[in-house]
C-alpha cells in the first residue's frame, strides 16, 4: 500500500457476493422497480414530502399513504469516501471503490447511496454531476451505482 494512493486508479465495485437484500413490505416496491431498471421514490400523498428509505410514516406529517414517483436518476455527489483498505478478505480485489452519497434531482434532496463507477478515483468530488447506472448483481437483483456525466 503506497502512502499516497495512485489516484488515477480505476474505481472498482464491491463483489456481488457481498450484496444481500432483505426487503420489507415498504421497501419491496423500490427493489422490484430497481430490478426493472426503474428508479422510484415514495412521496407522501398528504403533504408531498419524499421519504427515504421507504417506510411506514411520513416524517413531516405522520401520514402513511404514499405514491411512487419515477425519476430518471440524475444527481450530484453530496459527499463520498474512497475505500483503499479491504476490511474483509472478500474485498481484496475490489479496492479502490468509492461509496457516494448523491442528492437526487427533483426529490427535495433525497440522498441515494451508491458506488461510483466508470471513473478513476481522482474524478470523484463533492458537486460532481452523476447519473444512475443499475448494477445487476444477480437475477432479479439490481442496485444503484453512479457514473459521472
Amino acid at each position, binding site marked *: 500500500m503506497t502512502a499516497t494512493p495512485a489516484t488515477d486508479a480505476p474505481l472498482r465495485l464491491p463483489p456481488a457476493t*457481498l450484496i444481500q437484500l432483505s426487503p420489507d413490505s415498504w421497501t419491496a416496491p423500490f427493489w422490484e422497480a430497481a430490478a426493472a431498471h426503474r428508479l422510484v421514490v415514495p412521496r407522501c400523498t398528504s403533504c408531498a414530502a419524499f421519504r427515504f428509505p421507504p417506510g411506514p410514516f411520513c416524517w413531516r406529517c405522520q401520514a402513511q399513504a404514499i405514491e411512487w414517483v419515477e425519476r430518471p436518476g440524475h444527481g450530484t455527489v453530496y459527499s463520498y469516501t474512497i475505500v483503499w483498505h479491504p476490511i474483509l478478505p472478500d474485498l481484496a480485489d475490489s479496492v479502490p471503490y468509492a461509496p457516494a452519497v448523491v442528492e437526487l434531482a427533483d426529490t427535495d434532496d433525497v440522498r441515494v447511496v451508491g458506488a461510483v463507477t466508470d471513473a478513476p478515483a481522482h474524478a470523484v468530488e463533492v458537486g460532481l454531476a452523476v447519473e444512475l447506472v443499475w448494477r445487476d448483481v444477480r437475477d432479479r437483483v439490481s442496485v444503484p451505482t453512479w457514473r459521472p456525466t
Partner: protein
Amino acid sequence: MTLRDKTAIVGVGATPYYKRGRSLPQTSLELAGKATLAALADAGLSVADVDGLALYGMGLGGDTSLFAQTLGIPEVRFTATLTGGGGGAAGSVGLAAAAIVSGMATCVVSLMSLQQASSRFGASYAPRGKVGAQYSAPPSPEGNFIQPAGLMAPGQMFAVLARRHMYQYGTQREHFAEVAISTRENARRRETALMRDPLTVEEYFAARMIADPLCLFDFCLECDGAVAVVTVAADRAQDLRQPPVLVTASAHGGHGRWGQAITWMNMPDEIFASSGHRPVAQRLYAMAEMGPEDVDVALFYDHFSPMVLLQLEDYGFCAIGESGPFVADGNIRWPRGSLPVNTHGGNLSEAYIIGMTHVKEAVEQLRGTAVNQVAGAQVALVTGGPASLPTSSLLLRAP
C-alpha cells in the same frame, strides 16, 4: 428540578487494556466483574452496597441478569441501558444519577466491558458470517440502501461526514493529524496506553490510506478491557474513601432526524457535517448553568480523529466550521492549550473501551491525580459518540 450536583462519582476501576483478542482466556463477564470490584474498592464500598446498574447497551450485551447473579448483588432495584450505536457511555452515568435522584436506587454501577476476540467493530456493518465480519449486523431493510455501495465499516461512514466538512469549511488533513498527534503525545506518558511511540506529521502522512480522507492514524484502536464507575448521592459521597466528583449535568439524545445518521445519510443538510451533539450540548450546559468557557478539560469520544473537530464546534469551543484553525493554533494541546483534550490518550492511542476510559480520565483530572494533570482542573466535559441517536455527555466538577 434537575439532577445538578445531587450525585457524585465515588469510584472508578478498570482492567488492563489489551489489543483486540489479547484478553483471553478471561471472559467478557470476568473483565466486567474485575473492573466493577476495582471501582467499588476505590470507593471503599462492596458488592453488598450495589443496588443499581445503569449501562450503555453494549456494556453487557444490554443484559444485566447474568452479571447480577454472578457477582451476588443482594437486590437489584434499578437496571436500565441507554440504547444506540456507540454514543452512550457518558450518558450511562447520567442514567445512574437519574436513578439515584428519583429514589429508585442508592448505589449504581455504570460499566463497559468489551472483548473483540471473535468479533470486530471495524467491520460492524459487513455481511454477517463473512470472514472478518463475525460481529456484523444482519441485513436490514434500511441497511439495504447503504451496504451495496460497499459502506461496511464505521470508519468508512464517518469518512463521508469528514469529507463533507472539508468541502463546506475548508478543513484539511493537517487538522486531523493535529488531533491524532496531540492525542498520541498525551498517551506517551501513560503506562496504561497501548500506543506510546511518538507520532510525527511525516509518519501521519506516510501512513496508508484506509477510507479517504481517513488514514491509519485517524482510526481508533480495537481493544479488549472493562471500565466501571460507581455513583452515589452527593451527601453520602462525603463519607467515602475518595474525593467525590460531582455529576453536574448529563444529557443524551439528539435531533430526531439525526436518527441512524451514518447508516442513513439523509440527515438534514445543516447538521450533516456535525457530530450530532449540538442539541445535547445545549441541554447539558443549560442544566449545569455553565458554558464552554467553564470547561477546563474535555474528553471527547474519538473513534475517528475528525469527529473531535466536529465536537469542538458543537460544544461551542469554536464557531461552526472553524475547528480546523482552532486545533492548528495549538488549543487542544496539554498542558498549555486553552482546552486540553483527551489527556489520557483517548480511543486513538490509549484504548477503545467505547468511551468509558474518558469518564475515568475525567474523574482522575478532578481528583488531581491524572498522569497529564491539567493544573487546577475544576470542570470536565465527557462525551459519548458521534454515533446514531442518542449521543450523550456529562459535565463533572470537583466539589
